[in-house]
């Protein structure tokens, strides 16, 4: 095994989403909301101020019938690493209320420290960050069903997908209790991964060659995690955000939808370093 692939103590948790398997059912979105106490509005018709840590986009190849093709693209926070943890959002937060965890690669959000300037939202090209325009209001009795492991957020702060970080903490506690230093792959899985009926989402440590995510996309660590698998791609790879969510598709048009191309550019992308 080359050094590059040897099991690295630094974990980089990431996700691989097979777009050819996703049916757009939205189970991941629902599971995410329930798991993370995500507040909702009485009227959810205006999607631009609804909170959806996991959001399923509908893409089309733009061709007329009968050549029309549809693809559903689930988009959690991409947990961008940027260059050396210089994620687009983390680097801009003036109050250090969002952080890149170099041990797990997870971009955290500290709700009690965020003061709601929304600069991080402006910085995120994936619209993965959401502002609490209202205080959460739970229908009568529902507060009893909230997860005790995730603190609900108050009005005026930003929130986003945490890769169910509380599950990682619980798994770590369990491993520690059992005298292990490592969290097993199946011990830490996100709610959306487990909820997806099509098995389109895979989650694990991209640095660990034994984990499925690593085997599926073969991240090239010398090139900021660029996937070596031909069918794998990341969203807006070229911006240099260095995301840890990878997508798979056999379809060329779907892969091309992941990034912006000039007419003359080929699929090969050289991400910018920041």
């Amino acid at each position: 095994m080359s050094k590059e692939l040897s099991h690295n103590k630094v974990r980089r948790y990431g996700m691989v989403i097979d777009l050819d398997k996703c049916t757009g059912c939205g189970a991941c979105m629902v599971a995410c909301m329930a798991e993370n106490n995500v507040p909702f509005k009485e009227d959810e018709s205006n999607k631009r101020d609804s909170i959806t840590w996991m959001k399923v986009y509908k893409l089309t190849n733009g061709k007329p019938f009968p050549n029309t093709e549809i693809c559903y693209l689930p988009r959690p926070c991409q947990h961008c690493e940027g260059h050396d943890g210089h994620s687009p959002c983390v680097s801009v937060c003036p109050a250090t209320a969002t952080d890149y965890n170099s041990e797990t690669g997870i971009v955290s959000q500290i709700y009690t420290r965020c003061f709601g300037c929304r600069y991080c939202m402006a910085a995120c090209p994936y619209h993965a960050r959401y502002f609490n325009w209202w205080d959460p209001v739970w229908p009568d009795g529902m507060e009893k069903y909230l997860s005790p492991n995730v603190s609900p957020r108050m009005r005026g702060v930003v929130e986003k997908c945490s890769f169910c970080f509380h599950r990682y903490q619980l798994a770590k506690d369990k491993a520690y209790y059992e005298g292990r230093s490592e969290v097993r792959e199946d011990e830490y899985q996100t709610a959306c991964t487990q909820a997806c009926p099509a098995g389109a989402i895979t989650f694990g440590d991209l640095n660990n060659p034994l984990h499925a995510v690593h085997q599926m996309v073969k991240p090239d660590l010398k090139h900021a995690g660029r996937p070596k698998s031909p069918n794998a791609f990341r969203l807006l790879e070229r911006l240099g955000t260095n995301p840890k969510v990878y997508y798979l598709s056999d379809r060329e048009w779907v892969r091309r939808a992941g990034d912006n191309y000039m007419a003359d550019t080929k699929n090969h992308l050289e991400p910018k370093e920041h």
Partner: protein
Amino acid sequence: MIDSALIPKGLKRCPTWQFVAAIGVFGAVALWGVYAMLLCWFKGLNQTNMNDYYGFALWIWADLAVIAVGGGAFFTGLLRYIIGKDELKNIINFAVLIGFICYSSALLILGMDVGQPLRSWFIFWHANVHSMLTEVAFCLSCYFAVLTIEYIPLVLENRQMDKVPFFHNLSHNMHGVMAVFAATGAFLSFFHQGSLGGVAGVLFGRPFAFREGILIWPWTFFLFTWSAAAYGPCFTLLLTKLTEKISKKKLVKDNVVELLAKISGWMIFTYTIAKLIDTIYWANITAPSLGFKLSHFYSNNAIYGYWILFAEIILGGVVPALILITKKGRQNPTAFTTAIILAVIGVCLNRWVMVLQVMAVPVMTFDTWALYIPSWQEIATTLLPVAYGVILIIISFRYLPVFPQELELNPDESNKAQQNTEKAEENPALDAKLSPAGA
């Protein structure tokens, strides 16, 4: 007039009723704004039409715009105290006053804009030194303190204040060390104006805003500082002209206005060249390297077309610069007024583009343009600083010697006013009845 004793000696001011009426009108607008502001504070930012696509909106543009046009204070101070353009002492008070208004407004807007205003101090306590916004917060607050220090001596020069020996001496001594504050102000302004530009320029996830640069500073850092220094004086001149028009008298001599206009013109000229180079480089190298054609930023939506680029750079840059750098242009009142108006619009448009268009442009290929219309609460709160500014100018103009050349430029009326003032001083209670209208 009931308040004659407060009016600078020998100067004529409008009747009290006019003054009160003006304060009343703008006070009403300000109250409307305060009401909207309280709504935002107590009910939250759901009172605005901002959303998760448009996290920065109307008032953040206003914030950037007032800071840009408020740049007249630091730049005029720099020219007067450090570079030694002595004539500018005749307009520096007004520039400081405008700067004070602009910066206090900017801080007020920031206080409204954040979702948890009571936690605003976290920006200092948990400061992230890598964030441009941290730099903005630090320098902005410090510079506001400097502006306050620069404004105080003017307040102390009020006729009644000046009678108190302590205030008189304090004001005198403060004037003596003003160069130190002017230098500090220029230093702080360089950084916060720049870091405001950096706020947009570092967004490498937003190709419309992103710019390369030197070390940690994107080109927008320098462009913002430069443009604030270039356009700020135009705003000072615009408001000077407006005050002259409303008070129906000349307040600043032509040579002073022309000097400032000329410097501003050259600054705009050089800035526009830099901006053009920046735009060409960004359009041909930066954006394409990220996969974007220029047309991506200016098509497929209802508002943002190439016209905005033209309006900002040509109408708001080239045209005013060419007018202001020529003697003929400066001396022709119509051309001059057109130039300073275009310049102020131009810099405000630049700030709009660097905040609001940044939010509007789609980045992911399957995203759409995000357009947004502000709510009335946002409009009211954005008008609040305008109304507050007008009120502060009206009060300062009435009671403080803002324009040192006013007396000299209006000798006739000074004599009349002098007589009235003397009468008023003899018997202030009778003043309201005795003084003729208009005095």
